[in-house]
């Protein structure tokens, strides 16, 4: 017989066991319900692509409006305000001519000797241009805003005012006319027509969201490039247009593949350019091809110079930011890898995949940019990129020193009475050396976009500087 005390103990123990079991089952029930909810959420995400909350038109410049329909892309687009240094560049506006003062002398007599800051993210393109001393201390045309703002509505308005009516058939004509008018305006006047940096509408059709190119400078440039005889194995739609008899104009929006468009939208601005003639018409010098010497040949043909060097009196060229041109010479382009594959890689949010609109250096995002194809550890990939960039930097250092040696030789010869005319061939070499060095230095990849092409250009630059040096000696020795 059990005593009542033992009975009571048993009963209490049983109750505790029941309560614990109840708690465990209840928690398991909650866990399972949460899991079902999670699975349901993922399944739902996989189905819904987007909701159309606001109507978007060609005049919807404000990215926030687009963000209402495409919140994920907008979130990452906004992150282009982030400032981050990489080993050789990044999005921090450090003063390049303080970082390496040799460039002050290389650009002597030109605005870049006054202010040459590293560019920051897309979000700053317009405000940074307002601030650079190249604009505040020097007269610049409205042409600059072609790439520093979301400018298409301003072009249409200017075209309209110049007498091109709003008929759909004349839409492109109206834009092209407006482009001409705005290019020729003084910067301050044209600046009043725009108020946003690059926006969604510059690369996307507001109705279909398809990628499209809108910038007149690019449309003219790519059309010229297609007409040239330069080999363009990495742009198959141009090769096809040529093979099919070069009928009409090459039209990227109609003929290019989606993968080509994922580079063309960037090539609207990340290119070499100059302002043509008194109308300051923004022109991409691709008439003979995309290589440095093909562009140089075009500039020689049209007699273009960016400035006259203050020491050597050379009519010199300044490279802008020939990323598209340099990428075109590299293995990634040749393998069909687009700008967006590395600079706007796909990111996954839940069960949805979008392209990252936080456009930035792939070195800040190696896993998503590189590892998708290159199945190595992140440190290994970083090390491979660093090897290419460090080699480029050390070769670039030598090219800079060689150019300074040439400048020193030329200016001391002039001081000692050697006539400028007899230094013409040295000036010719200076122009070539400067162009090749700058084509690498101004290009924002420190050689990565096309390592071998970069090395070739720097080797040629050093050679032309030394040839120029020899020319100075010859001029001095001449009777």
């Amino acid at each position: 017989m059990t005593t009542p005390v033992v009975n009571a103990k048993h009963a209490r123990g049983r109750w505790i066991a029941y309560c614990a079991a109840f708690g465990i089952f209840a928690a398991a029930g909650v866990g399972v319900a949460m899991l079902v909810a999670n699975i349901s959420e993922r399944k739902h995400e996989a189905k819904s692509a987007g909701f159309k909350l606001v109507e978007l038109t060609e005049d919807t410049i404000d990215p926030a409006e687009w963000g209402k329909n495409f919140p994920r892309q907008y979130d990452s687009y906004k992150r282009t305000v982030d400032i981050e240094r990489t080993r050789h560049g990044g999005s921090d506006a450090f003063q390049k001519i303080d970082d390496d003062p040799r460039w002050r002398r290389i650009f002597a007599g030109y605005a870049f000797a006054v202010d040459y800051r590293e560019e920051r993210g897309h979000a700053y393109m317009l405000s940074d241009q307002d601030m650079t001393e190249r604009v505040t201390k020097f007269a610049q045309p409205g042409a600059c805003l072609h790439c520093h703002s979301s400018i298409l509505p301003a072009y249409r308005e200017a075209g309209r005012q110049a007498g091109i009516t709003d008929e759909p058939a004349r839409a492109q004509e109206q834009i092209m006319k407006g482009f001409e008018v705005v290019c020729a305006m003084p910067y301050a006047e044209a600046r009043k027509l725009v108020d946003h940096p690059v926006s969604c509408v510059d690369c996307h059709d507001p109705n279909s969201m398809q990628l499209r190119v809108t910038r007149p400078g690019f449309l003219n440039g790519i059309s010229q490039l297609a007409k040239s005889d330069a080999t363009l194995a990495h742009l198959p739609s141009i090769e096809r247009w040529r093979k099919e008899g070069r009928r009409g104009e090459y039209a990227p929006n109609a003929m290019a593949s989606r993968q080509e468009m994922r580079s063309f939208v960037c090539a609207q601005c990340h290119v070499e350019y100059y302002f043509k003639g008194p109308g300051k018409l923004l022109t991409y010098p691709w008439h003979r091809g995309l290589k440095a010497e093909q562009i140089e040949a075009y500039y020689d043909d049209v007699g273009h110079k960016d400035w006259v060097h203050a020491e050597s009196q050379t009519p010199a060229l300044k490279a802008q930011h020939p990323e598209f041109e340099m990428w075109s010479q590299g293995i990634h382009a040749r393998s069909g890898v687009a700008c967006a594959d590395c600079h706007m890689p796909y990111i996954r949010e839940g069960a949805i995949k979008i392209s990252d609109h936080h456009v930035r250096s792939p070195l800040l995002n190696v896993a998503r940019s590189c590892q998708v194809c290159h199945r190595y550890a992140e440190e290994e990939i970083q090390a491979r990129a660093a090897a290419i960039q460090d080699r480029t930097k050390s070769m670039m250092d030598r090219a800079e020193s060689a150019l300074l040696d040439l400048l020193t030789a030329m200016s001391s010869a002039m001081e000692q009475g050697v006539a400028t005319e007899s230094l013409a061939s040295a000036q010719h070499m200076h122009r070539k050396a400067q162009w090749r060095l700058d084509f690498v230095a101004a290009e924002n990849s420190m050689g990565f976009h096309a390592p071998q092409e970069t090395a070739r250009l720097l080797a040629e630059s050093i050679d032309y500087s030394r040839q120029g040096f020899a020319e100075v000696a010859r001029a001095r020795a001449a009777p």
Partner: protein
Amino acid sequence: MAIASGAAFGLVALAGVVTGLSGYAFHYAKGTSYLSNDPRACINCHIMREEFDGWEKGSHHAHATCNDCHVPQAFFSKYFVKLEHGYRHSKGFTFQDFHEPIMIKPSSDRVVQQNCVRCHASLVGEITGHAGNNESLRCIHCHDHVGHGATR
């Protein structure tokens, strides 16, 4: 006693509800598909969509499905590996805490190698037949495109 048996009944009922709910969750998440050899089971959760799409274009498409290469073929080791993968993948997808892009684990890499040799034994017998360590031999180091198409 009456109260205690009432509580026991309640617990059994609750256990039944939890079991039912779990069963539904298993069905809703297409749990049985993971026991099959159907490649579509691998894209239930969208993460391996690229790998699946690549396989459809790869040269092995006509000859091998996911399980032919990625799990051992012996019954027990096959379902043990499926269990291990299933646990790791569902935990990763639920908590969203895995490395992207997904990359093969060393243990899975060895399974793939064994399966390469399993089918191609007569072709590579002269290579794998050497005495010593064959661990360092990886067919897919060079033949990396056969399963999922070209990646580099």
